[in-house]
């Protein structure tokens, strides 16, 4: 016993020494009130800037679902002094790339530009205008509304979309995470809704600015202030409510597809929860570790039931889902569902084996450098750290936090977060 303890302590010490540090992250508050995160990196003549706002689709008011996405889509379609064509043409002339997305919590807008002054400075000026003076022109709004409705109608014929929506609705009854845009809600949106949403959610206080690449600290400070100082004044928009856990239930939805889409899960994990590392490491063995997980072995390798089968935790500002998913031909949907449930029950009862735990740590620790081997990946990681307010040494301590997870902690964490009595199941196109 003593020896075993000693050994594990030794392993920890070794792990600490082997632990790899993340990039050096500078952090400050811009005079505007925006939080800024900066990784200086002159390896390539590139600058990446991402601005994240607490303006994701979870902030859609009931009946106005789809608003957050449309606001985001229209940011670069007309600003003070430039119409949508001028914006796109100028960015293309500079070779700059504008990107972004809307998740549950976050609306992100990012710019990649060459760092040379003659490219960077004008590109940042356009970026500032996009964030600070979108005009939401009425004609553009009507057009984009129609495009959005067309895309939604198409998506609603797809078995994966139908399954995903039913799944979120079942997990989050009465909560904003469980609602989604429909053709009706989007058609009902007015221009004034866009302006109001923008003014209350695209504020400096709700923003984090992440800067990675070929600029100096002084330049980074200036550009963070430039991008955030003209944002709308903070009006104290509402925060997200805590969801209630659903009672276990199962839904079957007909569809002509050849394959059934199966989803199982529940609201499970909030960003910053101390159980994050036990759940991450445990889930690797259950269904997160690509080709080596239990689900992959039992569902795909042993039985040939599915091409893809997985499980993951999606931590959000409020508890985000734990989700298992697979697709299998109609006739064997029930068999595949049973195998999946057995695997989950077995894992909840026993936790990972010693060998599984070791394999999980080996991969998660060993692959750490791969999480950060490009500016793009550094940007992704640091923007999450900034948006959710993680400690600045989160990446530095990542491998250490993985290493110290025990099998008992995994079992206990799963027992706290993955309770069968709250688990919902959705099967679309089953038999």
């Amino acid at each position: 016993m003593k020896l075993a303890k000693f050994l594990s302590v030794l392993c920890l010490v070794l792990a600490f020494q082997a632990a790899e540090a993340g990039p050096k992250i500078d952090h400050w508050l811009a005079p505007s009130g925006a939080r800024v995160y900066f990784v200086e990196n002159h390896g390539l003549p590139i600058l990446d800037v991402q601005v994240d706002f607490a303006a994701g689709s979870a902030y859609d008011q009931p009946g106005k679902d789809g608003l957050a996405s449309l606001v985001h889509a229209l940011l670069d379609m007309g600003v003070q002094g430039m119409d949508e064509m001028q914006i796109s043409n100028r960015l293309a002339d500079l070779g700059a790339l504008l990107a972004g997305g809307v998740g549950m919590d976050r609306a992100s807008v990012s710019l990649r530009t060459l760092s040379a002054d003659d490219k960077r400075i004008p590109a940042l000026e356009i970026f500032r205008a996009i964030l600070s003076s979108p005009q939401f022109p009425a004609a553009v709004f009507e057009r984009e509304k129609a495009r959005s409705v067309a895309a939604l109608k198409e998506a609603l014929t797809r078995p994966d979309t139908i399954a995903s929506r039913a799944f979120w609705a079942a997990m989050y009854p009465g909560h904003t995470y469980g609602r989604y845009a429909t053709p009706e809600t989007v058609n009902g949106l007015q221009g004034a809704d866009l302006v109001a949403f923008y003014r209350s959610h695209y504020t400096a206080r709700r923003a984090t600015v992440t800067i990675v690449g070929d600029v100096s600290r002084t330049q980074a400070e200036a550009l963070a202030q430039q991008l955030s100082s003209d944002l709308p004044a903070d009006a104290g928009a509402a925060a997200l409510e805590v969801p209630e856990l659903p009672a276990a239930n199962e839904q079957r939805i007909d569809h002509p597809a050849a394959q059934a889409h199966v989803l199982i899960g529940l609201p499970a994990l909030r960003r910053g929860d101390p159980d994050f590392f036990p759940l991450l490491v445990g889930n690797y063995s259950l269904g997160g570790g690509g080709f080596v997980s239990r689900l992959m072995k039992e569902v795909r390798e042993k039985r040939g039931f599915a091409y893809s089968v997985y499980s993951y935790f999606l931590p959000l500002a409020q508890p985000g889902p734990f989700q298992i998913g697979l697709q299998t031909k109609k006739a064997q949907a029930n068999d595949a569902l049973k195998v999946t449930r057995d695997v989950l029950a077995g894992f909840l009862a026993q936790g990972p084996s010693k060998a599984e735990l070791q394999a999980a740590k080996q991969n998660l620790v060993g692959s750490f450098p791969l999480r950060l081997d490009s500016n793009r990946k550094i940007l992704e990681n640091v923007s999450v750290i900034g948006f959710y307010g993680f400690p600045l040494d989160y990446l530095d301590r990542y491998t250490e936090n993985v290493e110290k997870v025990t099998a008992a902690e995994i079992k206990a964490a799963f027992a706290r977060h993955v309770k069968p009595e709250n688990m919902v199941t959705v099967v679309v196109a089953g038999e």
Partner: protein
Amino acid sequence: MLYLKLIPFLLFLATPAVALANPFEQQLANGLRVIVKEDHRAPTVAHMVWYRAGSMDETNGTTGVAHLLEHMMFKGTPTTGAGEFSRLVAAAGGRDNAFTSKDYTAYFQQVPKQKLAQMMQLEADRMRHLTLDAKEFAQEIKVVMEERRLRTEDQPQALLGEQMGAMAFQAHPYRVPVIGWMNDLESMTVQDARNWYERWYVPNNAFVVIVGDVDHRAVFKLAEKYYGPLKPRALPARKPQDEPGQSGMRRLTVKAPADLPVVLMAYKVPVLRDVEKDVDPYALEMLASVLDGHEAARFSKSLIREQRLAVSAGVGYDATARGPGLFYLQGSPSEGRTRAELEAGFRAEITRIVKDGVDADELARARAQLVASQIYKLDSMFAQAMEIGQLETAGISYRQDKRIIEKLQSVSAEQVRAVAQNYLRDEQLTVAELDPQPLPQTPRVPSATPRH
């Protein structure tokens, strides 16, 4: 003394030459080429093995075998058990996968640099020593059929693309989908997989691409050690199977459960064969950029934003391929507009190019984007390795990558106009339409109210 003094001088001279030589290349005695691009920005490496064998090398009745074999490559050798390959890569902190195309099959691992030797050992092992066990095959073919259901059978746009290929090409094996026809999968045997493996999985039909924080000399030594002992074997003759000329429009319709109609138009066009002499493939690339290179390019500006004829409209063209080329126009009409109207809208845009040419601004914009993209790609080791592999499988040296960019930059407005006129003609066109069908029993969209 003189000798000693010379050495630092030589080193000094040699350094820039070394920098210019990156990527480095060596061919082993068994024919395997090893291409190493040093990139020291992060302590990781991408390791890829490319086989010049894709679905275009398949024969009737065994379509999909190239891709099936890709799956079987993870099912073990005498020294590495079934599933062990991925387990070892995962234990090394790595990520691995593989992909099959019409032209090639490629395998990759992204690992911390210390693990490169082990990856080379594993890849070398399965290059010649795959077990191809009948039981493993019987499970895996089911997985592949599920993959086909997931990615093709239940994806209206994929079905449309599959039918398009089968109609645009009648003789060339590009007519066959990479994943294979379902009935061929249903009747595939482990012997089909063995035949395929024996035919194509030899070092003289492969090349290795390594991009990352490595010293090329050390990598060449490792390559010699692991890949060197593998025996080459003569490859079967590859018949050209050239597609006969097309002399009239072809048209097909796919009906599938969906809501949005799709128009997919494909014109027969050339691809890059000779980096120095060719002109048209470069002009076609620039044409694609003028039509669909950014949000205000012609298709978006005219078809989506001004005329509101389409909710989406795009262009597809890949100038590097082993087989024949297609220049695709694809889009979905806006509500209330028809597929025929969108097709006419596409044609009108092409006619406008043929009649009025393209503006200097438009070409300058496409060039600016090209220059920037060359810098941006350096941010990803994986992307750099992919580029090398794709050029090489198409029979173009990766060493010509900069020359290709220069050639693209030198395309004139008249050359762009000329390719539109010469190739985007009805005689060379195949049109595929997705005719969306309502779901037989429209599922009730679940409401947001709780239901237990």
